[in-house]
């Protein structure tokens, strides 16, 4: 019986992670459209885009080698593996072991390495520029993420994501509300930076010179670009799942209610991202490091508040 439930839960986890993420993108786009007074694309548009891309043909530059094709593959494979260690709605993730949060962060590192290499493989000055920016900014986002995760480790006294974000989280808010707020704000900035959202990067910009992530994948097209787009939605979903779980640690004991609260939280997060994108302009590139350093300092302060 327990085995059956476990198997069912595993299937549910995989199904949610596999199908829900593009909807968040659609939700962000819809929010921005409503802010601008437009009807906007349908909520399901990201699904149509990905499916269309997967059916298309491809053009490869003759400068490129196999590394160029490895970029999207590594990006998608690492993201999907990371999806298996992130708990959803407070339930244990399918895979969970001591130190899985390190693997979680480093898998994104592997994806970044190959995305940057794929960009440099084209020999294009624009893609090199994007790659350099991505490499620089992630150097500052990485410590912020680790400060935040280690604050959660200290709070929960456990070594894996599943138990860190498990049932005890609601009580922590009573005792350590201030540090948790700082950590959440910092993780939200990391989420915006890692997923190329405003104010770090503008996913809709038309000038390659100001892009970061989009310019790195300029030469990818067709199925390869579809994989990149899908991996990006899953990545946003995963970091969002961590933040939502900290913000609304609902544990009613009824899995359906918990799951519903979690999904509602995710859509609220997507709306929040949409609102940030609508009311802010992209920062000048030279100011982005200050924002990320601020994120580091916020979560470092959160950690320091836990001392004593």
């Amino acid at each position: 019986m327990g085995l059956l439930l476990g198997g069912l839960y595993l299937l549910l986890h995989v199904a949610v992670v596999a199908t829900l993420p593009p909807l968040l993108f659609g939700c962000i786009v819809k929010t921005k459209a409503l802010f601008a007074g437009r009807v906007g694309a349908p909520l399901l548009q990201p699904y149509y885009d990905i499916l269309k891309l997967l059916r298309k043909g491809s053009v490869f530059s003759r400068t490129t080698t196999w590394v160029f094709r490895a970029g999207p593959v590594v990006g998608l494979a690492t993201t999907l593996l990371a999806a298996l260690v992130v708990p959803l709605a407070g339930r244990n993730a399918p895979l969970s072991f001591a130190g899985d949060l390190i693997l979680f962060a480093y898998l994104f590192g592997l994806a970044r390495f190959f995305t940057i290499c794929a960009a440099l493989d084209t020999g294009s000055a624009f893609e090199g520029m994007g790659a350099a920016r991505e490499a620089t900014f992630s150097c500052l986002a990485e410590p912020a993420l680790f400060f935040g995760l280690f604050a959660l480790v200290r709070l929960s006294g456990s070594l894996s994501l599943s138990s860190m974000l498990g049932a005890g989280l609601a009580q922590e808010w009573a005792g350590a509300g201030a540090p948790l707020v700082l950590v959440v704000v910092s993780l939200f900035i990391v989420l915006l930076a890692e997923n190329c959202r405003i104010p770090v990067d503008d996913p809709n910009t038309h000038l390659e010179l100001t892009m970061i992530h989009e310019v790195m994948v300029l030469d990818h097209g067709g199925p390869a670009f579809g994989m990149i787009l899908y991996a990006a939605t899953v990545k946003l979903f995963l970091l969002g799942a961590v933040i939502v779980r900290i913000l609304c640690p609902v544990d009613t004991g009824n899995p359906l209610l918990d799951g519903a609260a979690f999904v509602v939280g995710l859509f609220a997060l997507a709306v929040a991202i949409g609102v940030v994108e609508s009311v802010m302009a992209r920062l000048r590139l030279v100011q982005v490091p200050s924002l990320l350093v601020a994120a580091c300092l916020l979560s470092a302060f959160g950690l320091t508040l836990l001392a004593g």
Partner: protein
Amino acid sequence: MTLVLLAILLVGSSGFAGLLVGRAWGAGERIAAALHCVGGACGLAALLAPASAFGDALVLPWSIPEGEFSVGLDGLSALFLAPLFLISSLGSIYGLAYWREADHPESGRRLRVFYGLLTAGLALLVVARNAWVFLLGWEFMAVSAFLLITSEDHEKTVREAGLLYVFCTHVGTLLLFALFALMRHASGTWAFVPLGGVATASPATAGVIFLLALGAFGMKAGAMPLHVWLPSAHACAPSHVSAVMSGVLIKMGVYGLARICSLFPSPPAWWGATIFAVGLLSGVLGVAFAIGQHDIKRLLAYHSIENIGIIFLGLGLGLVGRSLHRPELIALGLGGSLLHVWNHGLFKALLFFSAGSVMHSTGTRALDRLGGLAKGMPRTALCFLLGAVAICGLPPLNGFVSEFLLYLGFLRSVASAESGDGLWIGAAFSAPALALIGALALACFAKVYGAVFLGEPRTDAARRAHDPGALMTVPMGILAGACVLIGLAPALVTPALDGAIAAWSAVVPPAGAASVHAPPQVASLAPLGWLSAMAALLLALLAGGAAFLHARTRGAAAEPVLTWDCGYAAPSPTMQYTSSSFAQSLVDLFAWALRPRAHAPRLTAIFPPHSEFESHVPDTVLDHLLAPACRRLADAATWFRWVQQGNTNAYLFYILLTVLVLLLWR
């Protein structure tokens, strides 16, 4: 033990046979490589026995006063011997093609003799069980390394690098003399015996012993700010020598520090904290300096400083664990540190071999004069890529495993309620620092791999590059295979780690003190099985993704065309992003430490004439600290110059005088 001594003899004498045969047919070099490999195989065979079967120390009388020839093998020595024999043997094979007698008639023989002696000296110092044998091995290592670094001594930069190295290594030796004299004073013997009891070493003496060890061994290991000799020495030596130096030689500093610390059963906590702080400084600044380099071998050298920093982090954590009686921190900290000693040896040797193969084919070390080599040198490119992923600590290769052990040590310190504030806050702030080191290393290796192997060739030499022969690619392949193997099945190496940790902790506790718990096995603390499973799962997902993309693009792919480049139809190789441009924003972020120098042209007219821009990142400690200090010292010492006549007879006279004075004094 006898097998190890036989290995040392074989390896040490490998270069001499070549002196006796003629230069024709290259017989000498083949004999040398064969002897070296046989010796290395002997040594590795000796290490395959379980740690309990290593036997007691071997003590032979010898004619040096106060001393006996005392050597022994334990888990800690074995752990350092394994990469030594493996990498130096592979290096001797690689050298057959890289430094052929026919191409280098003036230095080939010398290189082989001292390459063998260097390996023998390194092995001897690792098995030494008293100070004299240790110093013998140490000086063999120091002098042979000097003669290897200066293989191309017709070049001024090489001579300067060699002199700087010899200066630094002898400062280290001087510190070692003081260290061993103090230990002899405390323990009454030259042998390495535990210095635990109250009677043997007062806290002040013990503290001085520790600081001397940190200075001497930190200098050898290349820890910041004692690293000044390292970048130029690694850059100037032939590539297989650089591989041995970076992969093995600098680890002797780690070995020495670990060995000396192991003699103290209950060290004060500030020892571990100091090593830890040095590790943090080396790690962050080492990789920051690496990002600013334009020379591939100099860049790799700065990464050695970074990795020594990571190794020191683990050693410091282990030592703190010993001070605070936290056996699990000893196992994770020391385990991660020692595994990183292996891993760094493997992937850094791999990277130096690959860089050497690039130099061999193109004749340049300048990153911005290469490019597009992945097409002409696919095997080298693959090896370098594996080495790069491993050195960045990314899954699923070996670098990730050792960093994972360290992170696990930090996590346990942070999560445990027993940890004092100092410990958990230190650990909680080190983890983001280690993450920063990892992210910077990633940026740096993406830059190197992109500039050297990807894109379009920037010069004709790069366009004509081709893979070297099997003599060079097979050693690279073996190292790459080892990196993959440790990454996929880390459980294979835990017996060696457990043996070394047990040897490190096996000191008799002083009477009255609480007995030190034996640290638990690494495999019982770290979910290594999970790491293997995740690595396998990742490979499966990668294979699935690759198959999917292949199936989707096979029929549908159009003819290859130009890179799109935002519609520009005539891109040229010089329009690519260079490695300097790639690194610029990171160099700017660290400008407070790196002090980059740029020579920018001043544009005056509306139509400016031909002008040039140049920027480089010099070594801040050397240029801004050490060089001015040495100049001051030299100025202050001018009045003493009359003693220095440059006349051999005068020096002999001084020595005679000193000996007489010492005899009378006694």
